[in-house]
């Protein structure tokens, strides 16, 4: 098991941001008494002292007030990674946030804020340029997402209807290698040592057995985790137990429920969600590209 995880401690209220981050929502506390958005997470509103503080989706725009490049850190996880660009952002909704900055953000410029989950599954704040088309590869974003860019991806079943469109979408997203089908038993170790993402369309148990330990033992930013594609009738909490177990090992678990979406749309949406750091993707029955 990898010990190298980012700082994990969070208060109880901060942990309630995890579902929003998993679904790609920028949700913040909003005071039911006075309407103020609040951040960091609180137990009483500093404006009116109300404790009616539910989460609501907030406008994600903000302006960069200041930034730094953290070159020296006492934390072993961040020490193993390149220097981190950190920003102080004034969010449009009125709060101030400290965010991990994408390298493309311009100093003093406009950003788009996001809640994301770090390698340990804990919530962090990230900021990218507000008007970003295709973003350059960013070392810290690799730790916050399952972006296929530069990674080796294994899809379990070469014959699944999703597999061919997935291979295309993964390659278009810059995957360094895409494998489909389980390797010969004697090649297991070699493949396990370099596979970064496993996409399981069927029962993940044999895959976890084959590749889990090797993936979990890796500290590098390449190894990402698991995408579990569920059947259409999968319950809301599908994958929760597996996610919890794997999160402890620094491996992300993403669950995807295609519903009745056609494979091409699903593949595109799935690769998009992996790049965005989502942990859950549920497509509506009539989803189109």
């Amino acid at each position, binding site marked *: 098991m990898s010990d190298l995880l980012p700082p994990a401690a969070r208060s109880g209220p901060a942990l309630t941001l995890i579902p929003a981050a998993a679904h790609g929502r920028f949700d913040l506390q909003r005071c039911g008494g006075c309407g103020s958005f609040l951040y960091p997470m609180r137990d009483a509103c500093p404006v009116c002292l109300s404790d009616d503080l539910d989460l609501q989706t907030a406008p994600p725009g903000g302006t960069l007030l200041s930034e730094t*490049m953290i070159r020296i850190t006492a934390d072993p996880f961040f020490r193993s990674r390149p220097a981190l660009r950190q920003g102080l952002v004034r969010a449009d909704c009125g709060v101030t946030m*400290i965010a991990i900055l994408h390298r493309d953000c311009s100093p003093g410029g406009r950003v788009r804020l996001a809640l994301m989950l770090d390698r340990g599954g804990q919530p962090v704040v990230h900021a990218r340029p507000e008007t970003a088309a295709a973003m350059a590869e960013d070392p810290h974003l690799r730790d916050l997402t399952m972006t296929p860019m530069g990674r080796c991806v294994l899809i379990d079943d070469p014959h699944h209807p999703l597999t061919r469109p997935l291979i295309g979408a993964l390659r278009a997203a810059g995957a360094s290698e895409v494998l489909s089908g389980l390797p010969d038993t004697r090649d297991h170790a070699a493949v396990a040592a370099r596979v970064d993402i496993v996409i399981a369309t069927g029962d993940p148990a044999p895959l976890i057995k084959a590749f889990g330990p090797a993936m979990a033992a890796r500290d590098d930013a390449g190894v990402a985790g698991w995408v579990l594609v569920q059947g259409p009738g999968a319950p809301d909490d599908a994958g929760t137990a597996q996610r919890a177990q794997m999160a402890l090992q620094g491996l992300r678990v993403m669950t995807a429920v295609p519903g009745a979406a056609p494979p091409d749309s699903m593949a595109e949406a799935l690769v998009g969600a992996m790049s965005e750091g989502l942990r859950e993707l549920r497509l509506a029955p009539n989803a189109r590209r």
Partner: protein
Amino acid sequence: MQKDYDGVVVAAPVSLPYAQFSDRTAQGWAGAALRALVRGSGIAHTDMDGLSIASFGLAPDSGISLTQHFGMSVRHLDTVPLGGAAAIVSLRRAARAVQAGDADVVACIGADTNRPDSFRQSLANFSRFAQDAVYPMGAGGANASFALLTRHYMERFGATRQDFGRICLAQRDNALKNPHALMKTPLTMTDYLEARPVADPVHLYDCVMPCAGAEAFLVMREETAKAQGLRFARLAAAIEGHNQFPDDPVQIRGGWAAHVDSLYAMAGCAPADIDVLQTYDDYPVIVMMQFEDLGFCAKGEGPDFVRAHDLRIGGDFPHNTSGGQLSVGQAGAAGGHLGLVEALRQATGQAGPTQVAGVRRAMALGFGMINYDRGLASGAVILEAC
């Protein structure tokens, strides 16, 4: 209208030689400071009826534990978790206690130890907001937090790294006269500018060296000090302020700015009457803010002020005369006590090699507690020579 501190004096300045690392506990350093207070004042610790302690490393103890540990029976007890503002706040509370007769002799101590891992441990769980909303984004600690403030201040007011360097160089020059300073070699502008970056634009010499150590002083009424034959300084004025200016988007001023007029009114003087200044120097940007906030120049004029003045002991604006935390070291929560104790030495003519001539009034400042994105705590005192 704030009441004055008539009759309250400060005496017995104690600064223990710091050590970069120490096996002694925080309690051990506090006990050593208490021993030094007894030696310096001739007052037995069992005759002191007040204790005020500031330390990051006492857990699971607090002040009450120390009363039994050190054999003190007290009427005034204060554990002050305010980091660099603790010294000023300790003094202010002790002052009211002795003024009102709630206590007669209060020992105020700042003490901390330092082990190779203690700094990282204290960063990781400094406050709930830092734990939730700062540390996970890069684990930069205070260096990153102040880097954000420094860059903003530089862009807003035109301060350059050379301006901050002037502060550091002058303090280092002062420190060379202080045998207890941990930094013992001169610092040049080239050294300063070319030092390794820690969190841009903060570089190595913008950062204090965490260390183990202790500082202390006694608070009492004037007649008690006279009866003991102690040199003392009068507490002419004191203010504190916490979470002032919460609507400033980025911190450009400390809490002192909210009540600075009260401070000078109480002391019956103006900024020009301060003969020696000890700022809280966790980072040079905060020093510059203190020059502005305490009225030595206007907001935003810090860079010009630093370019126009000589901050060394023999200069026209003696500042951080023992070298400050940047050159002496920061012994945890005793960081704010360092300046206050040096101000006390200056005002009582006991500063020895770092003594400024003719000190009538000395100012000491405290600041700290980056709970999230700004230093929340602040305090200021003016001591008057007698």
